[in-house]
């Protein structure tokens, strides 16, 4: 295992200490239980809180700050955080207007956030949680765990954060979050596996000429394995199911998010963006906003995920609103 870490047990805590040292102006890191809040919490608004396993940096801690999250709860690597982390984080940042928990749809995350929500409600803090489940690689059905939450999470955190900053109510912000989730679809692929520090070897083995199609963000294998294709062919495998799922229609204004999984350099992400943009234009979509970079990672996994969000004037305005976090900044 080749990583810039000390001992596997300390990865999450030491990375948090690094964030704390790097961004004292933006963040405050709390330990035992671990959670991150803004350096100066703002209580006269709806608090937007998220969390999940570590190993996806900059998500979620890198999105804490003005115009985005009020708090983030990092679990162990690829393991959802515990209810007491979310309870502590919520109590630390939520005011009378309550808190929205943005939850990625994974069994563990859902159960832990549910338990946390119960604990918080017991304290009479108004709280809503919204599930993000945008991954079209997983077929949706009531008798399974359903679709995973992936790229749409970043977009929902930015947009809901802006709405909360603008004074919207808890009901409004959570309805907005549902709308973002409902209008977003994603799909990812991996060229390599990744190594969970405390395991020490790759989660799966992938031959030199093969790739995993339909991976999530926890190093899990994808829906299927295929021979590697040129980038253009790979992008088509990701974009087609996204387009047909919502479905997106000619004339739609969309935000195109090309995400890197951690080990893929930016030069490749732009080659992916190129083809994705060409395909969307062919389909008659208007890409009015975009995001290119590694914002939801699976440790050092090489690969990419594409997320498409159908925009409207409100979502666009909220996407454009000022944001000041370690990982996303604009307008300030």
């Amino acid at each position, binding site marked *: 295992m080749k990583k810039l870490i000390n001992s596997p047990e300390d990865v999450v805590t030491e990375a948090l200490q690094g964030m704390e040292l790097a961004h004292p102006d933006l963040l405050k890191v709390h330990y035992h239980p671990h959670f991150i809040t803004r350096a100066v919490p703002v209580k006269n608004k709806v608090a937007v809180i998220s969390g999940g396993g570590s190993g996806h940096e900059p998500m979620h801690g890198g999105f804490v700050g003005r115009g985005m999250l009020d708090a983030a709860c990092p679990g162990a690597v690829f393991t959802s955080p515990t209810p007491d982390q979310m309870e502590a984080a919520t109590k630390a940042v939520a005011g009378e207007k309550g808190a929205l928990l943005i939850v990625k749809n994974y*069994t563990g995350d859902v159960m832990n956030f549910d338990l946390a929500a119960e604990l918080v409600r017991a304290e009479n803090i108004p709280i809503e949680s919204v599930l993000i489940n945008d991954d079209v690689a997983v077929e949706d059905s009531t008798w399974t765990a359903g679709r995973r939450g992936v790229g749409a999470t970043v977009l929902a955190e930015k947009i809901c954060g802006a709405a909360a900053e603008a004074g919207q109510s808890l009901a409004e912000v959570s309805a907005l979050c549902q709308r973002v989730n409902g209008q977003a679809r994603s799909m990812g692929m991996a060229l390599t596996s990744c190594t969970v520090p405390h395991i020490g070897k790759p989660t799966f083995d992938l031959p030199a000429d093969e790739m995993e199609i339909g991976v999530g963000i926890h190093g899990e294998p994808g829906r299927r394995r295929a021979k590697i294709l040129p980038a253009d062919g790979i992008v088509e495998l990701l974009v087609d199911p996204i387009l047909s799922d919502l479905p997106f229609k000619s004339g739609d204004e969309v935000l195109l998010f090309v995400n890197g999984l951690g080990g893929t350099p930016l030069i490749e992400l732009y080659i992916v963006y190129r083809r994705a943009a060409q395909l969307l234009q062919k389909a008659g979509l208007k890409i009015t906003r975009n995001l290119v970079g590694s914002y939801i990672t699976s440790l050092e996994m090489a690969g990419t995920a594409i997320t498409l969000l159908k925009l409207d004037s409100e979502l666009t305005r909220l996407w454009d609103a000022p944001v000041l976090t370690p990982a996303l900044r604009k307008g300030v």
Partner: protein
Amino acid sequence: MDAISSTHIERWLRDCANVFPAHKDELNELDAAIGDGDHGANMARGFAAIPSKLDALAGKEIDGLFRTTATTLISVVGGASGPLYGTFFLKAAAPAKGKLKLTLPEFCTCLDAGLAGIVGLGKAVVGDKTMVDVLTPALAALHPKNGDSLTGALERAVTTAREAAEATIPLLARKGRASYLGERSIGHKDPGATSSALLLEALLGAVQG
């Protein structure tokens, strides 16, 4: 007929702090095949935290031992297994309220309540390739048959659990991360089913002393 004492339960829970670290890699590997490779680490982290919490409760009521185990697992594990096993012990506590001893039927009532809690939380049914596939038949097998001993019943439950864990191999996962793999989940043993069997083995060992 012999009963289960607070001492048995405490020994069981303390033993788990050895059992799960010892099976950490095995459970991680099973989870790596159809999940995210952390089930062993999650179980080891969770149960390793238990013994220190039990010191204050030595010889105390069984429901307290269960409740402490529940809250510890919930606050230390995370993932799916944390809330699930946490709920198992939380719900198992109620019927043991104030008790220092449980007859086998009483004990079965506790564990059945725990399983009901897991099902209520996780909504899994037998055949979904989860821990429920093991706990359901194994806890049924734990109920006393005419005139068998406590250890006899426990041995029956453990055998049933081991078989049920193996029986998850050919199944297609419908719950948890493994469900994301669809067809690819077939042919692998479910990690949570395996940890449930280990949990019952530990119980047998603790009662046998």
